């Protein structure tokens, strides 16, 4: 403002000449307001071009759900569409502009040999202006941000849809999409034969679940190896807790810790060579944090405290561990060097902060934040110290970041039943995942696998 005033003074004094010179100067305008919200986007249902019945999976519906779940997009309801184009050449951009959408996705599913499909889609930026290189091009070519034809086997259509979501997400946010990743979780069903525990792996949207292990004894705390090929977990089979590592492709299991007392809360180091865990075989059964070298099976003790130290998690750089400890009276989060040393308390908001999870960039720490008898998911910005509660459930637990850091998956209770839910990192969008049956607990979001 002052700058602008200074620019005015000579014009006022010297009259026209300087005035006309200043008239050609660039207008400088400050914008500070604006609206926080999802990017308005329209996804036109893809057209099935085959002669028979359309495929069982609706690719465009899956893409829509994927994008909506992130909270970064506001999907225009299809009943408001003015047209339903299936390729760029059919799009009248003015229609979409008038509907206020920034981006548009159109596509079609074509039959291919052997019952397979080709899914063709195009993503457009409605407001993209032509540049010098665009002279003579049709509008849809200028505005197209992405366009692919993806071959897909019949049983891979969901995967294909997630792949398309990843491409769109990357184009619109600049971040990698996590729609093609998987999640692991524990289900508990109470049948006539008693309670059955099951370790399951599903797509990131909760669909397409596969059972990895089932047991009448409790299964707990699944943890993904950094390459996504293995899971570590606690199983009470045989009546005592032990830590196993299971290869997802082969089903081969390896018992890596079965010490006296507690063997719990395994967590893979980012390099995949170590496992942090909670053991109580020392100091009269007091739980302490240890690090297990998976190659040598050597154990390194990290904490030395008479209080409970548990639920360790690795910082993404592998240099430190954050764990829950009640050494201050109530459970709070502490950070300690991965080689050991003096832990530093991180959380001071409230009397209950436990079960930490690092965001992939290491900047945020998600946790279960207890307020009296109510437990919610909260996020601490490690740099600024800003503490934010994201959810408003009563029994939310086990937060886990999506590998792209955009969302947090957690377990909650809905209608007296344990279910999975996802919340955007800003807390604006929360969504329950669709799961078939049983009680769901302890989700763990898998890494990018390629």
């Amino acid at each position, binding site marked *: 403002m002052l700058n602008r005033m200074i620019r*005015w003074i000579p*014009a*006022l004094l010297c*009259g*026209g000449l300087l*005035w*006309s010179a200043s*008239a*050609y*100067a*660039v*207008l*400088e*305008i*400050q*914008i*500070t*307001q*604006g*609206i*926080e*919200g*999802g*990017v*308005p986007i329209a996804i036109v249902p893809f057209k099935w071009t085959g002669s028979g019945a359309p495929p069982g999976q609706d690719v465009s519906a899956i893409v829509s759900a994927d994008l909506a779940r992130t*909270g*970064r997009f506001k999907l225009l309801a299809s009943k408001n569409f003015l047209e339903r184009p299936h390729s760029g050449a059919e799009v009248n951009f003015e229609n979409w502009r008038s509907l206020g959408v*920034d981006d548009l996705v159109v596509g079609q599913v074509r039959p291919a040999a052997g019952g397979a499909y080709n899914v063709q889609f195009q993503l457009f*930026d409605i*407001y*993209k*202006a032509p*540049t010098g290189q665009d002279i003579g091009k049709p509008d849809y070519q200028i505005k197209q941000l992405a366009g692919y034809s993806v071959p897909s086997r019949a049983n891979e259509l969901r995967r294909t849809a997630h792949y398309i979501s990843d491409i769109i997400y990357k184009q*619109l*946010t*600049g*971040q990698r999409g996590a729609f093609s990743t998987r999640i692991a979780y524990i289900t508990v069903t109470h049948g006539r034969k008693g309670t059955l525990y099951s370790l399951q792996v599903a797509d990131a949207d909760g669909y397409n679940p596969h059972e990895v292990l089932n047991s009448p004894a409790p299964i707990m705390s699944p943890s993904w190896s950094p390459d996504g090929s293995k899971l570590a977990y606690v199983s009470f089979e045989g009546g005592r807790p032990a830590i196993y590592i299971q290869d997802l492709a082969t089903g081969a299991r390896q018992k890596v810790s079965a010490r006296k007392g507690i063997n719990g809360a395994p967590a893979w180091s980012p390099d995949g060579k170590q496992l942090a865990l909670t053991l109580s075989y020392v100091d009269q059964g007091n739980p302490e944090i240890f690090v297990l070298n998976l190659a040598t099976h050597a154990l390194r003790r990290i904490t030395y405290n008479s209080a409970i130290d548990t639920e360790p998690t690795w910082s993404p750089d592998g240099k430190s561990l954050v764990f829950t400890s009640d050494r201050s009276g109530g459970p709070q989060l502490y950070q300690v060097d991965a080689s050991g040393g003096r832990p530093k308390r991180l959380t001071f908001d409230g009397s209950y902060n436990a079960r930490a999870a690092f965001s992939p960039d290491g900047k945020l720490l998600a946790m279960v934040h207890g307020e009296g008898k109510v437990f919610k998911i909260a996020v601490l910005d490690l740099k600024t110290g800003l503490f934010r509660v994201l959810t408003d459930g009563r029994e939310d637990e086990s937060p886990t970041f999506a590998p792209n850091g*955009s969302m947090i998956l957690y377990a909650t209770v809905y209608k007296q039943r344990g279910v999975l839910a996802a919340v*955007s*990192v*800003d807390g*604006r969008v929360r969504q329950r995942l669709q799961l078939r049956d049983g009680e769901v607990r302890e989700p763990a979001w898998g890494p990018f696998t390629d």
Partner: protein
Amino acid sequence: MWHALRENYWAVILAVVLHIVLVAVLIVSLVGTPPPLPDGGVKVIKAVSVDEGQVKAEMKKLRSAEQRKQQQEAERQQRLQAEASKAEQARKREEQRLAELRRKRTEEQKQLKIQQQERAAQAKAEQAQQAKLKQQQAAEQKRLAEIQKKNQQEKERLAKLQAQQQELERKHKAELKRAQEAEAKRKAAELKRKQEAEAKRKLEAKKRIEAARRAREEAEAKAALQKQMDAEAAQMQAQRQRQLATLKQQYMSAIASRVENNWLRDPGIPKGTTCQVDVQQAPGGFVISAQASNCTGGGVAMERSVETAVMKSSPLPRAPDPDVFDREIRFTFTVE
């Protein structure tokens, strides 16, 4: 001709008489007996029945009539022959008389010719005599006219001289008068000129003083007016600048307001993140290009949000005055 006729009237009369006689003879011979008239076509005979006795009596009557008729005819023929011979004799006599006449006339003509020649000679001599006399008369007349002419000329010369004398005298008088008048006029003019010059000089002097005074006053007035105009111009200029400054503020606020309403940004973008967007607009406010740069965070989402905010706002509010319009706008977006 007439003269010739008069001189030979006997011959003329003779000729006339002869002509008349000839014409009469011609007419008589031309008159003669007329041709018989035609009988008018077919004669219609009306038949009447009679008795023979009657017819015989009639026939006898007719035959005697016929004989009488033939006798009369023979007598008539004889008469006619006698008449014809008589006429022949008369004709011969006449011819003899005519020949006599012709001979006489020729004689007369000969005589006439001789007389004529004599008369012509006599006339000629008379004519010569006459001409000579006439010549003498003309010469005398000419001499008299000459004398008369000379007298006239002398008279005219004298008159002319007299007239010249008079003219000279008159001229002299006029000259004298004119000279006197001219002198008087000159003197009067001189006086007048002097008076006028004096008056003019005085007037001009007055005028000069007046002009100088007026010029001074005008200059003063002009300077005052200029001063006033300058002051007014400066005031207007200042007012215009103030007006433009106000308009520019309004314009920028209008643009900012519209763009802010269209800035939908990802909630995940941290506070304090800024992004610059360089925009080119057409005079109607249509955004030609919007280019984000120097973003301090927020990545593609921030860049897209700010570029889209500007593109969505196209056309931008119109400039309230062409002087506040800028083709280029630089926006600075700040997440607060």
